[in-house]
């Protein structure tokens, strides 16, 4: 600024220069903030990856910021042992079942909430949401008894149904937000053109809210994938999820840090893949269609 004042620059241009400099300073500041924040997010994950590439003796023997002798042995242990890799298969099976069930039943309900008013609609909507608020800890024991009583204990469908408790309300909520954005004239035009309700819904309406369906499916996938308490309570052997395999191995085999870290890294991968596919919808998706 001092040399700018000394030189004979017209005041208007001076002001413009200062403003553009302030703007570029601000965007540089933003970049620094983002880099720091993302570093903070990635550092613990990096540490997990780092440990998964070390042998147990290297982990406990010394401290190093990167693996000295990178080894894939930990991953090999997991991918060759059925009691490990079946955990991933089980988790994926019930997560996919849950996603399909949740979105399928939520679609017509969300349509009803977004298009019509009917007796008790507001209370019903809030009651649905209350289930999203129910602490899984409250339901763990009753779920165990219920699914044991109907003979579904330790099956994939039991976990999938249990996760519906919080995923169906969420799916209804998200889809309702997206459907509200579709003008009602489209429905009316379709009926005048002679479409029946199911045909209209599948042929015309669902393509219109395709991104909303994707977002709802993403959220169902996410919350079912990360949940542990219910899936652990409802399974013992045949449908045991990976998350629960990990906790048991920690207590049983005297802390094999390398394998534990490798298992952790492998649980991050499906989520990372899913995010990559929905990256363009992610911002709007997180707002649940309500912006």
């Amino acid at each position, binding site marked *: 600024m001092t040399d700018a004042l000394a030189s004979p620059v017209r005041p208007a241009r001076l002001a413009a220069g200062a403003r553009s400099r302030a703007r570029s300073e601000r965007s540089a*500041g*933003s970049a620094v*903030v*983002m880099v720091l*924040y*993302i570093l903070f*997010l*990635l*550092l*613990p*994950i990096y*540490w*997990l990856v780092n440990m998964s590439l070390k042998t147990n003796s290297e982990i406990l023997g010394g*401290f190093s910021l990167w693996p000295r002798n990178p080894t894939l042995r930990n991953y090999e242990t997991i991918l060759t042992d059925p009691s490990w890799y079946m955990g991933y298969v089980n988790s994926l099976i019930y997560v996919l079942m849950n996603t399909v069930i949740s979105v399928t*039943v*939520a679609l017509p309900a969300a349509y*009803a909430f977004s*298009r*019509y*008013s*009917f*007796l008790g609609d507001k209370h019903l909507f*809030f009651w649905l*949401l*209350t*289930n999203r*608020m*129910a*602490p899984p*800890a*409250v*339901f*763990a*024991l*009753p*779920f165990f008894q*219920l699914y044991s009583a109907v003979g579904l204990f330790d099956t994939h469908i039991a976990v999938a149904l*249990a996760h519906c*408790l919080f995923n*169906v*309300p969420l799916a209804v909520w998200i889809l309702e937000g997206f459907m509200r954005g579709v003008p009602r004239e489209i429905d009316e035009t379709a009926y005048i053109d002679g479409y029946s309700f199911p045909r209209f819904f599948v042929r015309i309406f669902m393509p219109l809210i395709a991104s909303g369906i994707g977002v709802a499916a993403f959220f169902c996938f996410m919350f079912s*994938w*990360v949940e*542990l308490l219910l899936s652990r309570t409802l399974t013992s052997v045949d449908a045991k999820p*990976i998350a629960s395999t*990990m*906790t048991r191995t920690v207590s049983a085999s005297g802390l094999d840090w390398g394998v534990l870290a490798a298992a952790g890294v492998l*649980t*991050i991968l499906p*989520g990372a893949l899913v*995010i*990559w596919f929905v*990256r*363009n919808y*992610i*911002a709007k998706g*997180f*707002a*649940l269609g309500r*912006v």
Partner: protein
Amino acid sequence: MKPVNQKAWFLVLPVLVLVAFSAVIPLMTVVNYSVQDTFGNNEFFWNGIYWFDEMLHSERMWDALGRQILFSAIILLIEVPLGIFIALNMPKRGFWSSVCLVLMALPLLIPWNVVGTIWQIFGRVDIGLLGRTLAALGLDYNYTRDVVDAWVTIVLMDVWHWTSLIALLAYAGLRSIPEAYYQAAKIDQASRWAVFRFIELPKMRGVLVIAILLRFMDSFMIYTEPFVVTGGGPGNATTFLSIDLVKMALGQFDLGPAAAFSIMYFLVILLVSWAFYTVMTNLDREDAR
């Protein structure tokens, strides 16, 4: 106005049946336990409101509730401003915006016990980067022994885990603001703070209420992450409501008190969420006008 159509109930029916199966039956089981006592052998007898009375006078529950409220308050106070701040600094478009979105969403899709494991390892003094660094700086940090360290670790973990959710929601809100608003502000020579206060914050209001609602509910139900990291310790310092409840119901098998506890726990969440929900629907109605 939406047309009245009672037949819409048929569309809601599948959801109703499914959720009733997985919510009403278990909830009624809990209610059942809460008013009965047993001498074993699956013989139960009516016990009235004795368990509720006992839990309301038990220090254990009040302590857990106090810790829970403190925890939720701390993480909301950190995560909401931080999330908004991050959202304001995110690149608006282009390649880097996608990169930021993907990297920021990453912690949200890590299973909760793995989140716990990551931080358990990360904070360890012998093999973790964080613990090791703090020890090298001469700080006496040990989250398994020291109460404050345990709290700091858990709060830091939650900030790591969930700030992105608030940031992404706020970002979505920011993106929906038309460029004309900013141009008008520029003509008026509004300061950066005025732009935030009078344009961006009001426009983000709707999504922020969702963000706070989700974060409140989930932090109030938190179980897996602190359980993996500290197991509720040292002592009972990080035993939050869910951890205490699971200990009581599945560990000690005190079904009656645990059930009474559950119902009161659920009611607290319900009450707060109802308040949020009312605010939210009112905001929606204002926006629709």
